[in-house]
């Protein structure tokens, strides 16, 4: 029972589930698109103002849409007893949770990155800022997925875990939000934003190393 085998099996299984339950990845994407199209309508025909607030708006929208599906991440396997059997067999849950997180990112993070250039145009972002948006999303959305998986694992057996989940992970999202929108803002002034990207990459590395271990522990506690 190696981590790699469990990772591969879980990842393939999650991809099948993503293909079958399209709502799981369509809903966050639609939510993201709706927020970003409503903003120009709500703010009105003020291109300068829009351009100014765009970095924050895009990042808040991305954060909320990842949060939208976060609660469901481990819920079904918990209810069906799949997790229980994995824990009883002492299967390597790190492989399982990494696969879940990776597939979760493919469902809720990657689509956002793919549509973000289009949406950045709605908000009148320059090409430099647009590149920064895509780069920060590339580094930031995996981090969002990791943190939301941590929240989902911690609140797994809580009856109405949704609010609790939000309360637990929102503080962890804030540094990400600050550095990511700062990077986009710097880029829109034509300044160098490598420092912000480096900080995002560092946060991603730390989370990638620690979150699967924490998720494994949290899943075990919740099943017991």
């Amino acid at each position: 029972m190696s981590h790699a085998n469990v990772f591969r099996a879980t990842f393939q299984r999650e991809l099948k589930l993503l293909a079958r339950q399209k709502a799981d990845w369509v809903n966050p994407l639609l939510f993201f698109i709706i927020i970003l199209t409503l903003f120009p309508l709500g703010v009105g025909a003020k291109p300068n103002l829009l351009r100014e607030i765009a970095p924050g708006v895009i990042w808040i929208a991305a954060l909320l849409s990842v949060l939208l599906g976060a609660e469901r991440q481990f819920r079904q396997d918990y209810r069906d007893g799949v997790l229980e059997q994995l824990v009883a067999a002492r299967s390597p849950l790190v492989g399982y949770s990494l696969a879940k997180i990776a597939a979760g990112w493919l469902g809720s993070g990657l689509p956002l990155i793919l549509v973000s250039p289009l949406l950045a145009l709605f908000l009148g972002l320059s090409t430099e800022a647009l590149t920064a948006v895509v780069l920060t999303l590339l580094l930031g959305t995996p981090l969002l997925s990791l943190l939301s998986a941590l929240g989902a694992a911690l609140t797994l057996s809580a009856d109405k875990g949704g609010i609790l989940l939000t309360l637990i992970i929102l503080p962890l999202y804030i540094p990400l939000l600050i550095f990511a929108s700062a990077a986009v803002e710097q880029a829109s002034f034509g300044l160098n934003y490598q420092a912000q990207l480096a900080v995002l990459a560092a946060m991603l590395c730390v989370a990638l190393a620690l979150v699967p271990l924490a998720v494994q522990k949290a899943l075990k506690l919740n099943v017991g």
Partner: protein
Amino acid sequence: MLLSARQLSCIRQDRVLFEQLDLQLHAGEVLQIAGKNGAGKSSLLRILAGLVDPEDGEICYQQQPLSHSADDYADNLCFIGHLAGVQPQLTALENLAFWRACFALAPADDWALLAQLGLAGLEDIPCQQLSAGQQRRVSLARLWLTTAQIWILDEPFTALDQGAIAALTRRIAAHCEAGGAVLLTSHQPVEVPGHVVRQLTLEYRW
């Protein structure tokens, strides 16, 4: 002696379900845990499966306390709880493939196995479209795949028809003859051909 428990006690929501419970499971034996609803049968099985720590007492696998032998024990244990462990959007074949990878089981002919369990023609339908009994059969298919010596089954006969119950008891008998041991809960009397089913009754306590 494969599995033994000494002086186990379990407390749920300030209610003592059982205390000072001793239990032994030998190779080739079927032990049925009986008792009313809420008597603590499932809690006992979850403790014995190592999912929950008992309030008090000790579990030994082959005379070794679980704290030393947990990995060996888990490798040699097949636990099927009252939740089926079947992912409803996946087909029976896909569920089997996932277990095989996660529990490191040897490859075998899944189609033949599912046909043997009366699921011929239903192999590639999402499990949520199967009836409760058929889903249970998918979940119990693991017993035909596993090489584990100790089986812990929580209400394995629920929702099964007569034919499936007979197939399951035959499988249990074969497992015992091969030196395995089965610990199960059931509200119906369990008869395993060629084997005496030992009973342990948990009293319902206030």
